[in-house]
């Protein structure tokens, strides 16, 4: 099992947060006065993962080159932790020809074959695809692992059930990750899910299931390590539910009235300052790490802004190979 490196975990969380804070800022920068979702340098729906960094960082610490991730509509934290190039990702978000997908995909459809990363806007549908990645890894005789990520809302989709059964039945090297941030847009977990832990559902497939509480990156790291090692050793799939927090709106522009008083508690629940305190970082260290992340993000924004915009005719390419 990979060794836990607290500083690395912290730095990666900060890197993700600074990336997303910047996207948030740029996203809103040029949509006023009349706020228009389709306007600005970064248009469209934008689902940011602030608060959920522990899930991605704790899981991806165990992955090596060649392992695959399928992420959902809220993909940035897993993408960055898994090694997707920040410049190419930012350029994709800006819709540029240098983007991961040449501007065709956008933030919900990021494809990076080099790092075996992909995501999709249809919830839970990355689960079946991850089973296929795992099949290929197994057929090729490698020890690679496929990680599939979805939210707690998505766990009530049929694809969840079918995929868990298939992976268990075929003993595939998959780790199914559920990020439980208590909400599916405006619908709380209590109004979507009949039982309290998806880890309990794993038993229905004869698969180990673990729920990690408290959004604790080290606990995620431990649980994910066990699941990933298990898969790598050919012992089959596991399910890992991580109780986390969505600090911002479901998508940008979401006023979140439905969250009521919970909104006031969010600052306290931010896992990043909490982890800085837990591992005893000084203010200077915190500032330095943030500054380092910011400069990487600055460069990515510059890269994106300097990149060409696709032409209208580019839209006609790539329907068929």
């Amino acid at each position, binding site marked *: 099992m990979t060794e836990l490196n607290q500083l690395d975990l912290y730095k990666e969380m900060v890197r993700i947060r600074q990336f997303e804070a910047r996207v948030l800022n740029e996203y809103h920068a040029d949509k006023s006065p009349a706020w228009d979702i389709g306007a600005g340098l970064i248009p469209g729906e934008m689902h940011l993962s602030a608060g959920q960094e522990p899930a991605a960082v704790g899981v991806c610490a165990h992955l090596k080159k060649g392992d695959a991730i399928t992420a959902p509509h809220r993909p940035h934290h897993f993408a960055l932790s898994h090694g997707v190039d920040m410049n190419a990702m930012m350029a994709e978000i800006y819709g540029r020809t240098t983007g991961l997908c040449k501007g065709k995909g*956008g933030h919900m459809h990021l494809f990076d074959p080099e790092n075996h990363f992909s995501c999709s806007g249809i919830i839970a549908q990355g689960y079946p695809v991850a089973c296929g990645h795992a099949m290929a890894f197994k057929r090729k005789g490698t020890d690679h692992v496929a990680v599939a990520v979805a939210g707690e809302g998505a766990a009530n989709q049929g694809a969840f059930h079918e995929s868990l059964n298939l992976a268990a039945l075929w003993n595939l090297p998959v780790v199914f990750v559920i990020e439980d941030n208590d909400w599916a847009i405006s*619908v709380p977990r209590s109004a979507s*899910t009949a039982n309290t832990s998806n880890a309990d559902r794993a038993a229905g497939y004869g698969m180990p299931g673990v729920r990690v509480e408290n959004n604790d990156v080290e606990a995620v790291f431990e649980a994910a390590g066990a699941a990933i090692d298990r898969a790598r050793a050919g012992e089959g799939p596991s399910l890992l539910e991580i109780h986390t927090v969505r600090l911002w709106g479901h998508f940008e522009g979401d006023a979140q009235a439905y969250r009521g008083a919970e909104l006031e508690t969010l600052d306290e629940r931010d896992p990043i300052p909490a982890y800085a305190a837990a591992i005893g970082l000084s203010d200077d260290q915190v500032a330095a790490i943030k500054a380092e992340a910011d400069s990487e993000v600055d460069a990515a924004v510059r890269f994106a802004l300097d990149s060409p*915009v*696709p032409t209208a005719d580019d839209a006609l390419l790539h329907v068929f190979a």
Partner: protein
Amino acid sequence: MTATETPTSEGTRRITTAKAMAEAIALEMRNDPNVFVMGEDVGAYGGIFGSTTDLFAEFGADRVIDTPISETAFIGAGIGAATEGMRPVVELMFIDFYGVCMDQITNHMAKIHYESGGAVKVPMVLMAATGAGYSDAAQHSQSLWGTFAHLPGIKVVAPSNPYDAKGLMASAIRDDNPVLYLFHKGAQGLVWMAKNPRSIAHVPEEAYTVPIGEAAVAKEGSDVTIVTISLSVQHSLDVAEKLEGEGISVEVIDLRSLVPLDTETVLASVAKTGKLLVVDEDYKSYGMTGEIAAIVAETDPTMLSKPMVRLAVPDVPIPYARTMEYGILPTRDKIEAAVRELAS
């Protein structure tokens, strides 16, 4: 043809398409206890695209029901409730999500009445948001009405303006058949999306219906016929009004429903102008543009004094970047160019 029912911007109370939809649902809910609403975020949130605005406040959680993200289960549940006498209005948030629940929609909702030899009715409305234009990319921007119009057993409506939105919703809820009600996000009049002023218009306060299966002549004209639906009606009217000043007279047919299809209104217009442009935000091939071509070709191809023109998404998924997205959408510019070409 029902030119008289064409919405008008005259009148004092002007509301958005979204509000008009919600208002129609509220009126039906007040009248009929069997009507209830379910879907993702239709409750306190009011529907991601405003289709259920204020319903939760008036009718509460028992009649305006937030669901898990289990489209197969809750659309199936709508079907089951409908066959037991309810009149559910079920929202599928984006029509793009049809793929996770298509079996319930087309093998059950659409077929039960037929399979049962008429013994069982499925009086249900399935509403869903359609359309592109705000960089939501390939999985959240489709129109797909052609897909559903191809499969028998479902009425398919798609309003272009607030007046029709309200009247078609009332008709849909009262209909004893399943009705797929497709509303274009860009025609909802949402505060957070660019919009055409045509998405906010006069709508009478009282209940009324717009019949399903009757096209509207949204604008009369004599040189070129545009047959279209949904948001593209707004674009087509803009173009028609602009070209009017230049002496090009464009007739704009708003189909309003694809099933049933009002072939009579289409044929009468093409017979008059001899020039046909079909504008469709759905994919080009094997869809609405083809169907309109066929009703002309099987009736009398000599009606066409020039080859018809199809303006639709050119069989590519919807790309993210704005330049590419607008490159493939049937924009005003492209409509105008096509009309000029036909009129020349």
